[in-house]
């Protein structure tokens, strides 16, 4: 089957005064057509940077990305020039962010912003672009799409703006949609609506990457999951496999730390310690300083992602040995 | 006993804030280095300050600055008189160097008074709001309605002409910007959780303004002040130029340019060198201020 996105050994380093920050340090995964992949990780794991690196929207004077392979529908994204990228952004890859109000221009109406994007990519005039915009707004469940086009961002709520952002990003039918913590800033009831929306609109795009720290959300709408830690992928596979049969100690720890809705016995569990600094990551397995079951070799040799069951990969010496 | 305790507390407060500034200085210098022009500005200003502070000890004709010497009048630049002499026979080079000290003094005193008035009014207006805010802002608006140089001239002319009047006049026209700036910052800061936390412990308004609001406003104020120093020195020179600022025989650059005007056709050096000194100094402050503004801009704020 033709892969939608192929990422092999993606690295993104930031040049700073204190040294090189290795935010993403060699991640590899593939996205099939029609798949929804969830990238899970805590703050500082590098997941947002990974998403932005795939999209190539990081500032080029401080961020350096390289990969053995970064292909979207067969097209190498690393070779593209700035002007080529402008044609890709919005048309082949679209992204929605966490705080909807920060990513929409407060000075222009919804209609203007949406039609700008559509007319730039589809090369049609404003009237037709507005028509498409209106259809998209209807698709995302906005009441009275035609009148919403005239509204300004401050007149809508957070949930509605997020729907507008989803509509905007899907308006040019991109091959890949990246959603970076799309519901973290929203209420629970609104979050449920937005997640349902993303699920319903899966056919409007060939693949979705959902980035979040909330594993329960990933369980809701993703079919594949990749767990990221300190710039590396520790475990990846089908959502059921990874969440119900987690193999990596970090994944296990993370799942145990989530407060249970149905009966929490005694104290909450957690993984002690902190995420290592991306400036000087530890040798060997990045997680070994905090790992409750680390082996001596974990401090010297970095584990590689190995398949332990069909489509379930883990980067852990202990697991691969047994 | 109380006084000693208060004294040490004030000292601690100043020392602590100084330490914070020094800690940040390291980062600031690094960031400044990214901007070549602001480094140039920094060099120019350092040069200016060194000349102003130490120049008087090294000038060739220290005693000459104020005394007339008719036989030496209007000599062109030479190896004995680098910048020539003026219409009263005084060495222009010496006077330009001494003028740096005068300008620095005016600048520092004027900006200090300006900042004191502006910051106090701004913090009070922003924090208390309501009719206090309205009154202060309307007064600010009135002062802002006048072109500031004209207002400074008017005030200086109304007072007895001299350096002190010039400083006072400048301070009374420059404060409104600081009030506006600090008021804006205060409006944002007063709703921050750490201010609520202090209130919930029983802190009164004065405590919150002094301990929390003012220290957090300092950044943009310093940027403004560094840009303003140049303009204040220019304003002082302008006042000196029209005769309501420094009075003869004070070696003030503006005054020197003004006296040099009469002799410009034949002895241009009298006006040119003080003029270039003004230009050099103001440019230096501008470049430095621009660089500092880029650093203190919230987007590029140090994390």
């Amino acid at each position: 089957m033709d892969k939608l996105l192929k990422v092999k050994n993606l690295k993104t380093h930031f040049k700073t005064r204190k040294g090189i920050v290795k935010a993403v340090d060699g991640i590899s995964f593939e996205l099939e057509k029609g798949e929804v992949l969830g990238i899970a990780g805590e703050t500082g794991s590098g997941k947002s940077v990974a998403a932005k690196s795939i999209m190539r929207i990081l500032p080029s004077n401080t961020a350096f990305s390289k990969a053995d392979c970064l292909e979207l529908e067969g097209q190498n994204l690393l070779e593209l020039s700035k002007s080529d990228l402008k044609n890709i952004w919005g048309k082949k890859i679209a992204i929605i962010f966490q705080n909807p109000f920060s990513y929409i221009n407060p000075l222009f109406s919804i209609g203007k912003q949406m039609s700008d994007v559509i007319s730039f990519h589809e090369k049609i005039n404003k009237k037709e672009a507005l028509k498409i915009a209106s259809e998209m707004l209807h698709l995302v469940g906005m009441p009275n799409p035609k009148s919403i086009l005239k509204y300004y961002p401050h007149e809508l709520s957070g949930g509605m703006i997020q729907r507008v952002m989803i509509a905007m990003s899907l308006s040019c039918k991109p091959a890949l949609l990246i959603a970076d913590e799309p519901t973290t800033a929203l209420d629970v009831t609104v979050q449920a609506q937005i997640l349902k929306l993303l699920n319903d609109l899966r056919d409007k795009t060939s693949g979705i990457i959902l980035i979040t720290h909330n594993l329960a959300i990933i369980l809701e709408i993703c079919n594949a999951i990749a767990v990221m830690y300190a710039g590396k992928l520790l475990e990846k596979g089908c959502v059921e496999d990874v969440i119900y049969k987690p193999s990596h100690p970090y994944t296990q720890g993370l799942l145990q730390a989530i407060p249970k809705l149905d009966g929490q016995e005694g104290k909450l569990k957690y993984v002690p310690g902190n995420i290592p600094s991306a400036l000087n990551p530890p040798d060997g397995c990045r997680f070994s300083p905090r790992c409750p079951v680390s082996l001596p070799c974990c401090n010297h040799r970095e584990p590689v992602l190995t398949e332990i069951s069909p489509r379930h990969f883990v980067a852990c010496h202990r697991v691969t040995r047994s | 006993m109380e006084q000693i305790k208060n004294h040490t507390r004030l000292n601690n407060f100043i020392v602590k804030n100084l330490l914070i500034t020094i800690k940040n200085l390291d980062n600031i210098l690094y960031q400044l280095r990214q901007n070549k022009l602001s480094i140039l500005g920094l060099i120019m200003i350092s040069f200016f300050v060194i000349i102003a502070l130490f120049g008087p000890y090294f000038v060739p004709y220290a005693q000459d600055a104020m005394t007339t010497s008719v036989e030496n009048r209007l000599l062109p630049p030479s190896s004995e008189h680098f910048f020539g002499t003026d219409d009263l026979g005084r060495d222009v080079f010496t006077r330009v160097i001494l003028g740096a000290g005068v300008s620095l003094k005016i600048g520092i005193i004027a900006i200090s008074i300006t900042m004191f008035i502006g910051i106090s009014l701004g913090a009070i207006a922003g924090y208390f709001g309501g009719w206090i805010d309205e009154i202060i802002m309307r007064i600010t608006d009135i002062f802002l309605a006048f072109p500031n140089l004209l207002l400074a001239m008017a005030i200086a002319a109304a007072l007895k002409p001299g350096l002190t009047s010039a400083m006072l006049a400048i301070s009374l026209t420059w404060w409104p910007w600081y009030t506006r700036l600090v008021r804006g910052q205060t409006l944002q800061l007063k709703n921050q959780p750490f201010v609520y936390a202090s209130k919930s412990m029983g802190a009164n308004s004065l405590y919150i303004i002094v301990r929390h609001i003012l220290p957090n406003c300092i950044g943009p104020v310093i940027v403004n002040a560094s840009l303003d120093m140049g303009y204040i020195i220019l304003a002082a020179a302008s006042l000196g130029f029209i005769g309501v600022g420094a009075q003869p025989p004070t070696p003030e650059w503006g005054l020197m340019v003004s006296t040099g005007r009469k002799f410009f056709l034949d002895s241009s050096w009298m006006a040119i060198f003080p003029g270039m000194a003004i230009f050099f100094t103001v440019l230096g402050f501008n470049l430095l201020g621009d660089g500092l503004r880029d650093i203190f801009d919230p987007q590029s704020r140090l994390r």
Partner: protein
Amino acid sequence: MNTKNNHLPILKINQLKKYYVKKNFIGKMSEELKAVDGVSLELFKGESLGIVGESGCGKTTMALLLMGLVKATSGEIFFKENNISNISLKEFKRMCSQIQMVFQDPATALDPRMTVQSSLLEPFKIQKINVEQKIIDQLLQKVGLSSEFKDRFPHEISGGQKQRVVIARALALNPEVLVLDEPTSALDVNVQSQILNLLVDLKNQFSLSYIFISHDLSVVKCICSRIAVMYLGKIVEIGDTDAIFKHPLHPYTIALFSNIPSLTKKNIEKIFLKGEIPSPTNIPEGCPFHTRCWKAIPICKKQIPQVKEIDKNHKVACHLVEKVKK
């Protein structure tokens, strides 16, 4: 998870209202924002009462009202029998040490220009209490931080560590009640667990009483013995945690619970509420929830439902529930 240690509540709120009025330039009222619209609650010593709700429900305003940081429009707050609703500044300074607050975002809850030590000394300074240096070490120890954090600035320590400092500062004056406004929302799940464990330990160790405000029901379930659900400034349901989770009665509570993404309960039918939360400036007539309620009946549009006690400690404000029990 015991609830009532004493007969009398340590904190009692009676029909508390906070309306924000926007006047137009003539002075006439143009908009009235009903942030808190008639809330009555009791907090008993040693218990942890959770207040849950979404944006616009008024829970943050509740926190500010309890702390005395905003003045109520009407209603009363009693702390140990003393009416603290309209006390003078002097009185406030005297008794504010009894109720302290932990904030949501630790980064903005600490003055960025003050070291950890200065922030911890601040409560004593404001209250003019002379203390020795070692009290800082004691406070840090209480929250599980070593003394080396004394001279650090907020931007030099992690989110979880910052929140511990905020908690330590809140405990400095030995309060009896802590109001916690979303204390773990800004933290990662690992750090959240540590902070929640810490809060439980502190509560037991120092006999504290908590008002725990959160939108995260799973967090509230671990730490609270009773829960109050708020919607548009009113309490729609209140009761023991177990009772509310096992048998939620108010339609909003039922919908809220069904919408929580959970790792375990995968088969719950999600109830998607129609429309958006109405603006607090334009609260619907009758039951504020009726515009989104799938069970609404005609009376819901006209009459505000009274809070009725359905079960032991379990109260609901809903016309339908009343009807069923009849």
